[in-house]
């Protein structure tokens, strides 16, 4: 078993689970269906291709920088400009950085790692208008998913880390229930209907999974020692000269 770690960050992300009709919502963390879909498109699978092998993968995500939700009142017209498309409200997460981990068979994950680095279809963070920033793949780790997600250094932006430089930042960790070791269970469970059974646009299907919520304290790596005293001090020599004269 190996773990593939992904850094999901970009100006905007959108991870929809419950969207219906013209209100297109986003969850506050990447969904299993969204990330597995991104991996499948990186490999070059079409929507009707089988994804049974991907369903055996275990999934977890750490919210390194939670981001904020914005609403887009979306107006669009058809290509010839004659008809207006349905008005919709689309919600996005902005300024968010997530660490996602996929656990499963070594060979499969190696292939996925390669594919993410050289994707067949473009990668996007939940919605086509949300490209990721580089690097997406952080490579494979030889550790259980639970440990890999806890031990990876904090990925948040410098400005966000600065905001938490005096105290540890407690990042939420959302893990598939069966990826959490027995003794670590906190019992903070929630159901999520984001297990993709089929991406086929004619009959999309999703199953339930149990997600356990944990917290990981993250701290910024120690800042490089900065000399608090300015090395260049013209006053000292001017004062000395004044005393000597």
């Amino acid at each position: 078993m190996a773990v593939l770690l992904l850094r999901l960050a970009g100006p905007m992300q959108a991870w929809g689970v419950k969207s219906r009709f013209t209100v297109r919502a986003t969850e506050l963390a990447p969904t299993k269906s969204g990330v597995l879909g991104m991996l499948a498109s990186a490999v070059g699978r079409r929507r009707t291709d089988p994804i049974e092998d991907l369903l055996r993968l275990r999934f977890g995500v750490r919210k390194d920088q939670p981001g904020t939700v914005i609403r887009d009142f979306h107006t669009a017209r058809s290509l010839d400009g004659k008809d207006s498309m349905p008005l919709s409200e689309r919600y996005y997460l902005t300024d968010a950085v997530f660490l996602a981990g996929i656990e499963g068979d070594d060979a499969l994950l190696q292939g996925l790692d390669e594919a993410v680095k050289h994707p067949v279809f473009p990668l996007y963070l939940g919605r086509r208008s949300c490209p990721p920033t580089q690097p997406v793949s952080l490579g494979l780790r030889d550790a259980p998913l639970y440990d890999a997600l806890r031990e990876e250094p904090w990925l948040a932006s410098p400005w966000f880390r600065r905001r938490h430089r005096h105290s540890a930042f407690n990042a939420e960790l959302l893990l598939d229930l069966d990826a959490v070791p027995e003794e670590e269970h906190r019992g903070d469970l929630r159901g999520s209907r984001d297990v993709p059974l089929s991406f086929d646009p004619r009959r999309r299907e999703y199953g339930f999974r149990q997600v356990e919520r944990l917290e990981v304290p993250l701290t910024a790596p120690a800042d490089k020692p900065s000399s608090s005293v300015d090395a260049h001090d013209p006053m000292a020599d001017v004062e000395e000269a004044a005393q000597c004269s």
Partner: protein
Amino acid sequence: MFLTKIGLDPSRRLARKYLGSPQVMHAVVMKAAGEDSGDGAGRVLWRVDPGASTSLYLLTPSEPDCTQLVADAGVRDLQARTLDYSPFLNQLDSGQLWAFRLAANPSRSVAQGPGKRGKRYGHVTVEQQRQWLINRTPNYGFELVPTEGDDDEAAQSVVVVRRERPIFNRQRPDAEVRDRVTINRTVYEGVLQVTNPDKLRHALVAGIGRSKAYGCGLLTLARVGRR
């Protein structure tokens, strides 16, 4: 001449206002410097050294009155420190080594044709900016000390440690439009050797290069290796 050091506290509102615009800082500094602050070798020079603590250095012909400036924007419980510059200037002598810091506006003039005034352009790359200072050092009465183990001419001990481009709008009394001023502030550090004390004294007091009203031109010296 008097050299003054004032600790500024950037968390204070007025300090941020002063630090944010060279023109505002110019006005504040001129107010502190008092009446007799003309041009030439007796003019007011200033420089801001940001870092762990932000310091404002002033070089003024007469003793400045910084009480208002310190009260508005200074670090609490810290007074301005003013020292007489003349004893220091008098002890400068040929052959001395000094660590220096200089904020300047390196620029060049490009001819616009006969009878027309040349147009000023800022030097853009670090190498151009270094070369600008290296070429002018003989006029200022010092030379840059070559770095050890390297006799290449480019390896002189001067480095560009910081580059800023403050931009602000300036209202001219006689013009209707506000003109936009861009200053190409470049901070140099290095080690110099005094060759002509008189010329160096003049450079220290009169400043180096352009934009002296806006925080450029002040050269300060400190003993090499002092910590």
